[in-house]
């Protein structure tokens, strides 16, 4: 079913000169980016630089004002919701706040994409749900409701739901934000495991540099809606561009400090 040919060098996802504006705010400003199969690309940048917006463009939740988005040789930014369905079935999206349906149990959440799309019998769905829950290390929690589990568990359930249909691409929107360092590392390991075992192409939006260095094959840095750096993780450790340095080392810039003193 899934065709993740490792020899295929064509980009799986391509953004061509994508711009997006919300009111007076230019969130994306001519972004060009192509993502190869089987690679995990990490998108970093300060809050509000358009990282999540970038992800939502690729899955069609937002439409660009100008520019093109291509997925596996097909232009997708012009498709309507109905035509996007087959594309979206090949993608999984882990939302920042997990976005589990609180009217359903954990098991129903994970099985939801299968119930909607697969046409499998309930017993078969339960089987796949159990398998996915095992993959994220949460066997046996199917009957709980999202309100009864912790934040870290919610993210893992959401991940199980995102991979229920065995997607080729998984989008991770700040997967480690709000988790303690140990639980954050569990998520990192899971991202690596999905790449290793299922050859999933991953796009991780984060501002957690530990996570970025651990899971990324490649790191892209966004600043004010533009890509200012695009390289392998090691480059970021040694690069001397002040904007990159400040972010990677987590230091406030001089102007922020001056504002504090004046205040």
């Amino acid at each position, binding site marked *: 079913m899934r065709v993740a040919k490792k020899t295929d060098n064509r980009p799986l996802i391509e953004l061509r000169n994508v711009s997006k504006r919300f009111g007076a705010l230019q969130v994306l400003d001519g972004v060009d980016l192509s993502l190869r199969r089987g690679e995990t690309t990490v998108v970093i940048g300060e809050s509000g630089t358009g990282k999540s917006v970038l992800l*939502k463009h690729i*899955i*069609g*939740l937002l439409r660009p004002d100008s520019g093109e988005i291509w997925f596996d040789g097909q232009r997708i930014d012009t498709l309507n*919701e*109905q035509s*996007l*369905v*087959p594309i*979206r*079935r090949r*993608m999984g*999206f882990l*939302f*920042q*706040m997990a*976005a*589990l*349906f*609180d009217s359903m149990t954990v098991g129903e959440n994970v099985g*939801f*994409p299968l119930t*909607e*799309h697969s046409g499998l019998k309930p017993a078969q769905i339960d089987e796949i749900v159990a398998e996915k829950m095992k993959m994220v290390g949460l066997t046996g929690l199917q009957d709980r409701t999202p309100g009864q589990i912790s934040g870290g568990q919610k993210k893992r359930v959401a991940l199980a*739901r995102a991979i229920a249909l065995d997607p080729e691409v998984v989008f991770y929107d700040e997967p480690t934000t709000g988790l303690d360092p140990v639980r954050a590392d569990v998520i990192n390991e899971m991202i690596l495991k999905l790449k290793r075992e299922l050859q999933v192409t991953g796009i991780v939006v984060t501002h957690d540099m530990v996570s970025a260095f651990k899971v990324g094959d490649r790191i892209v840095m966004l600043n004010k809606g533009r890509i200012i750096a695009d390289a392998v993780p090691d480059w970021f450790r040694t690069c001397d561009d002040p904007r990159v340095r400040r972010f990677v080392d987590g230091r406030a810039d001089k102007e922020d400090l001056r504002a504090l003193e004046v205040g």
Partner: protein
Amino acid sequence: MLRRTIDILGDFFVFTGQTFYWMTRGVTHRKNWRLLTPQLYEVGYKSLPVIMITGAFVGMVIAVQAVEQFRAIGMEERMGSIVNLSVVRELGPVLAGIMLAGRIGGALTAELGTMNVTEQIDALRSMGVNPIRYLVAPRVLACFFLTPALTLFADFTGAMGGWFVSVILEGIAPGPYWDYTQQAVTTFDLYSGIIKSFFFGAALGLISCYSGFYCKPGAEGVGRACTAAFVTSFIVILALDFMLAQVLQDIQTAFFGFQSLL
């Protein structure tokens, strides 16, 4: 300001169009039926008590207001005509609609609004599920069909309330009371109340779902959306009532001629 209003109206009509498309598609696809059942329970069964109480008080209040006036001209036996006609034709449908706009509309806006701000609606779309089909169509469908059904209950308890005050408390003879009611209240009056309530149900369902679907982020956004949804539904129900009353009155006069109540 004007541009914003036109923008919102445009969005609302697109939303309405999509909802009606999925409502008609939904009925013919069995997999959508299971989405409808919980909504029918929520909108219909759970609203029954408040709707019946609303109806009963409406009937009782009209009777209390009317009885002195009718007695003063010695025509208290004709009470039934005015009380039951008001209930069936006007106050039953309108107050049931407004009650539902508060009870159901508020809940729908809050539910969809919360789903919106916690990215659950985006999650549905990301999984290739159309949120209008999945969330909105069954809710609006439930409002559309159950508002008239609930209005019938409000009409019934309204008539009972009017009878209670007139016959039991004020001692008006029951025989003439019901005879005059039968003369005054025609089948067309009952239908016109029910026809109105179909419109009220569709309006309150669409307005409430739309407000939740496009609410601003945060708890404040959801709260504001609920208030806006209720106020808008209330006014739209009253405006629709005015327009439909006019149209239905013309139809009745055209087909059945003018009928005097007194």
